[in-house]
């Protein structure tokens, strides 16, 4: 009952938010929700299975591309789900072959694939003679915020529920001991591929929404590897084992972004790198894990 109440409270607060604040804070809220959606989706795959994806920008970018291609052709309400579907389809195609590769190789493989797709889109766009596409007449900031609110809540609920489901137990079993999981009857290949697809759907839709916010599609921008890097950092800082982690991580990094990004982008990036290293080395369970440990008292 408690999580459901929290969800309804968050929905209520989110729906009221656009009426309470000005455009600037609404924009900050939108980017917070965007990061929550992305980081939750990432946790669903990488946090639970231990297969660290450094290429989630590919799903975001593909979603944005689908939106840019379909813009003014079909309704927004068709284009956004299609963007998610396209990302899911890409994950389905990539899932089986990629998830056979483990550990650090999976990490660099996902990175490589994201870059590969980026340069293919760049080449296609150059072949079509386009240098960026303008997306005029998009919905208002309030509408985008509300859509993103739904995506963020869905992603959060998905991570929360998955973590507590039979499927989630299978994912975590794979993280802890893949061979043993297979032995006790988990169809490892299918489970991993399913998680991969699930973690791609929402980033695709997020990309579609955010490209409308920027009103401009440029492949190098939407497929930016920095996006993947930030998602990972955020989830690691917050804690990547359960739904509260990405919320904390996103809150923390959006705050940091507002403080530093505009005035000192390099300092911001350096801090991000330091935080990532620090958390991986000294606090791998993240802020959420640390808080949880405090509230439960010392481990027996």
């Amino acid at each position, binding site marked *: 009952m408690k999580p459901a109440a929290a969800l309804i409270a968050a929905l209520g607060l989110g729906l009221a938010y656009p009426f309470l604040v000005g455009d600037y804070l609404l924009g900050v809220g939108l980017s917070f929700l965007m990061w929550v959606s992305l980081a939750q989706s990432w946790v669903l795959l990488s946090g639970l299975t231990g297969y660290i994806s450094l290429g989630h920008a590919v799903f975001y970018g593909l979603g944005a591309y689908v939106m840019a291609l379909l813009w003014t052709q079909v309704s927004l309400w068709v284009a956004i789900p299609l963007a998610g579907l396209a990302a899911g389809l890409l994950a389905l195609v990539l899932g089986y072959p990629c998830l056979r590769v483990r550990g*650090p190789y999976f990490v660099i493989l996902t990175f490589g694939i994201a870059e590969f797709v980026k340069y293919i889109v760049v080449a296609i766009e150059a072949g079509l003679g386009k240098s960026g596409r303008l997306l005029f007449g998009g919905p208002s900031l309030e509408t985008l915020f509300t859509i993103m609110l739904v995506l963020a809540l869905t992603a959060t609920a998905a991570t929360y529920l998955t973590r507590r489901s039979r499927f989630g137990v299978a994912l975590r079993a794979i993280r802890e001991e893949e061979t043993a999981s297979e032995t006790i009857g988990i169809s490892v290949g299918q489970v991993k591929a399913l998680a991969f697809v699930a973690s791609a759907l929402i980033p695709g839709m997020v990309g579609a929404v955010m490209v409308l916010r920027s009103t401009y599609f440029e492949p190098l921008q939407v497929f930016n590897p920095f996006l993947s890097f930030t998602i990972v950092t955020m989830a690691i800082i917050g804690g990547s084992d359960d739904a509260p982690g990405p919320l904390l991580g996103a809150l923390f990094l959006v705050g940091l972004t507002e403080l530093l990004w505009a005035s000192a982008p390099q300092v911001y990036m*350096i801090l991000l790198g330091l935080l990532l*290293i620090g958390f991986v080395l000294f606090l791998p369970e993240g802020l959420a894990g640390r808080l949880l440990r405090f509230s439960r008292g010392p481990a027996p």
Partner: protein
Amino acid sequence: MEIILSGQLVLATLVLGSVYALVAMGLNLIYGTMRLLNVAHGEILMIGAYVAYWAFTLLQIGPLISLFGAMALTGGLGWAVYRFLVRGLLAGSGEIVQRIEANSLLIFFGLSIILQNLISLAFTANERAYPYLDQVIRFGGISIGADRLVILGISLTVSLIAILFFRYSMTGLAMRALIEQREAAALVGIERDRVSLLVFILGFALAGLAGALISMTEQISPFSGFPFTIAAFVVIILGGLGNLYGGLLGAFLLAGIEVYGVALTSSAYRSILVYGVFIAVLLWRPQGLLGGKRIS
């Protein structure tokens, strides 16, 4: 057919391949002895390139001399990274090895971001280049920049020295022993900690050297190292992870694919080509073309 036999392209392949061999050797050493994939390797190269650039621009010292400075600085960085990041990581737990490896990759990724932005903060993100030995030499219908010939000469010499080092010197043999038999190496009295430290210093210094060489012909920017990281990955995966001689073969193979691929299509497809090979190799033959250890 004509294009394949063109001396110009063969020479270009040799030059690029010899640089890749240097870059990849450092990465391979560190991977082989410690199973750590140093994603910040390209940034180390970039720092070496900046040393050469500033030595030339401010002090009028040519890269053939400043490359020693570049090696000293990046070697020192290797010492610091091992001492302050890696040792803690290796010592710090009985966790599943695989997860440490994935985590170590995140740490090096963080390092790479930090270095890129530190350099960008200090020297701006502008692309920089300087003219050095840029006269063209012609022989038998082939024309090539003198700078490229120098790069080829130095890289091949250093690779040769490295091969001799790994064959005949005690330290080189100890490094190879660690690569091939980590546990047994300790049994025969190899100090893993000391050799690992040397590996980091040597690996980083090789990247710094490659950077100083590359600065003669390429524009450098804080972000110009990363493509070399990717190329070095492709090379060592092609040649077999931890396999030092395979890496040499992989270097010339990748250089050939890149040079001929671009010559046959267009330079716009270079990144697609390199990443394509990268993905294909990881998916289909992660143990490398020469076989060797399987990745799991």
